[in-house]
């Protein structure tokens, strides 16, 4: 068991190493080189030379890579060229929003998706089954931004039920301790602020959660259909266990294994899908920051955000992988 976990974690090293080289190369490959990227429109030959000296860009490439690695390990990604804030600070400010959105989307996808997939499988071939199969196909095909626009137009612009943009009403003077707005409201007992933050999450979360929802429905349905025909289910029936016990202990529990993996994989993809959703809803998270940075050519922030999400994605997938091994002993053997 321990060997399995350690081996899986050691496999991370080459991946992270490769990632660092990739993003290091990115800085070099930027149009005009890193100095003019840093300076933006203020670049003059003298300034470029000064920056090159200051950042050691006139050193050999391997020295530069070593220094870059040292900085990355200390979470030093440079400063934003729009407002001079350290990139790490920008990430700390924006990331809680993305986390809230991702968790909300995943909650929506699992809470709706697992029962839907389960009941679709139980009524295999019935109306609910048909609807969920066709629905999940459509859910996978529709681009995130289309759904986001549709939801925003219908529920925010037309009906006015939910706010069209942002994370919290600007008129609410909420105290922010953790920058997780929902949590902050609960901690400071400003429940109206918390509720408002939740309202802002609903539409983006549904838009972002629909693709995972469709995938979870498909996987749950297929997994349950697989499991009900297993011998151990027949044995359980033969033993005279009640249907409820069989469903809970034998069917659902075994069917959940592939679903757990898929949920984990989706978590990483949600982080990148959030980029588009946040842009539609002007939701201040890392995705919105990435979109803004593309527009402003704010390369330090762009690079920091992408490295951050990529590393997080790799780590989450690895944790899911390890957890899967913990849940299912068969995986460990491989």
């Amino acid at each position: 068991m321990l060997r399995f976990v350690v081996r899986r974690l050691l496999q991370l090293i080459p991946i992270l190493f490769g990632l660092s080289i990739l993003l290091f190369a990115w800085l070099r490959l930027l149009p005009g080189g890193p100095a003019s990227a840093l300076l933006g429109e203020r670049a003059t030959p003298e300034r470029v030379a000064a920056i090159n000296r200051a950042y050691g860009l006139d050193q050999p490439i391997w020295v530069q890579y070593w220094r870059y690695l040292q900085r990355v390990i200390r979470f030093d990604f440079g400063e934003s060229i729009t407002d001079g804030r350290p990139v790490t600070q920008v990430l700390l400010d924006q990331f809680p929003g993305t986390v809230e959105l991702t968790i909300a989307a995943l909650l929506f996808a699992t809470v709706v998706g697992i029962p839907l997939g389960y009941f679709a499988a139980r009524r295999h071939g019935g109306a609910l089954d048909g609807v969920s199969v066709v629905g999940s196909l459509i859910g996978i095909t529709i681009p995130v931004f289309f759904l986001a626009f549709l939801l925003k137009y219908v529920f925010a612009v037309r009906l006015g039920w939910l706010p069209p943009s942002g994370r919290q009403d600007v008129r609410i003077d909420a105290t922010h301790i953790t920058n997780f707005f929902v949590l902050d409201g609960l901690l400071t007992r400003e429940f109206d602020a918390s509720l408002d933050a939740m309202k802002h999450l609903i539409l983006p979360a549904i838009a972002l959660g629909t693709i995972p929802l469709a995938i979870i429905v498909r996987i749950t349905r297929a997994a349950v259909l697989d499991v009900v025909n297993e011998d151990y289910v027949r044995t359980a029936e033969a033993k005279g266990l009640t249907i409820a016990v069989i469903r809970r202990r034998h069917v659902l529990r075994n069917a959940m294994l592939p679903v757990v993996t898929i949920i984990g994989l989706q978590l990483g993809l949600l982080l990148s899908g959030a980029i588009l959703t946040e842009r539609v809803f002007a939701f201040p998270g890392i995705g919105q920051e990435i979109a803004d940075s593309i527009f402003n050519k704010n390369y330090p922030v762009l690079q920091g955000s992408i490295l951050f999400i990529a590393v997080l994605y790799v780590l989450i997938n690895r944790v899911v992988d390890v957890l899967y091994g913990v849940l299912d002993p068969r995986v460990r053997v491989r």
Partner: protein
Amino acid sequence: MTTATQVDAAGGVFTPEEVVGGRWKEAFRRLRRNPLAILGALLVLTFLLVAAFAPLLAPHDPNAQLQIGEVRPDYIPGSSPGFPLGVDNLGRDELSRLLYGSRQSLLVGVVSTILGLAIGMTLGCLAGAFGGRVDNVIMRITDLMLSIPGLLTAITISVILGQSLTSVMIAIAIVNVPIFARLLRGSMLSQRESDYVLAARSIGLPRRKVVLSHVLPNSVGPVIVQATLTLATAIIDAAALSFLGLGNQDDSRPEWGAMLSDAQNYLEIRPALAFYPCIAIVLAALGFTLLGEALREALDPKFRR
């Protein structure tokens, strides 16, 4: 794929493939019976025709600001005679821009898929044919590429290459390379164990011949299915990148993603401007998806009756 055996038909010698009509013929027969495949094919055909004949179909010049006089900060005219879908925020005919936009989407979809296919298949074929160390190196590279979400890779590459349609096409192609490479490799590895490969080897065919004319042709099925599906995702990804401000910045060549990006500022006064390009993207992508899924079923022996 089956040309070599079809020639024999004149001589009266029937190969096993002719008896059942060949794998691809069989798949095509089943595709024709699948209503979803027909729907997909019709959507794709419409998309192709619109892209090809956009100048003939479009009622107006997509860049002429014909109704700019009617556009006010709080009002964009909707449907009117001569402008069935209304105009955009610069008074240009929306329908004409949509029709012309299909060209950009088709271009990105086809070029990036073919490019990704070419690189991916080369890598996958090398890995599948040689195995051993070559296989190991190629698979570790694909592992690394797949360990980053595709959208992030695509953003990174298009930023590095500068804002143009070409960089978007290259970015999307690269994102798909590891997928094609792995698929072909896996498919080739499973074919290598087949009896016909053993037979080909035992009659002393050189390895190059065995790989190129036996293993490879029988392994491309899943890759072709994936390529059809990739055409759909490439169209969506291109729109997404362009929505984020990457890609074609030349406003005189209408592009669905860029139209969407412009339209979001006018969602409150004229939401249709956002929905038209969205619907166009969905229909084009849906066509390729339906066709790809149907092709997968048609080629999959599990679905054979």
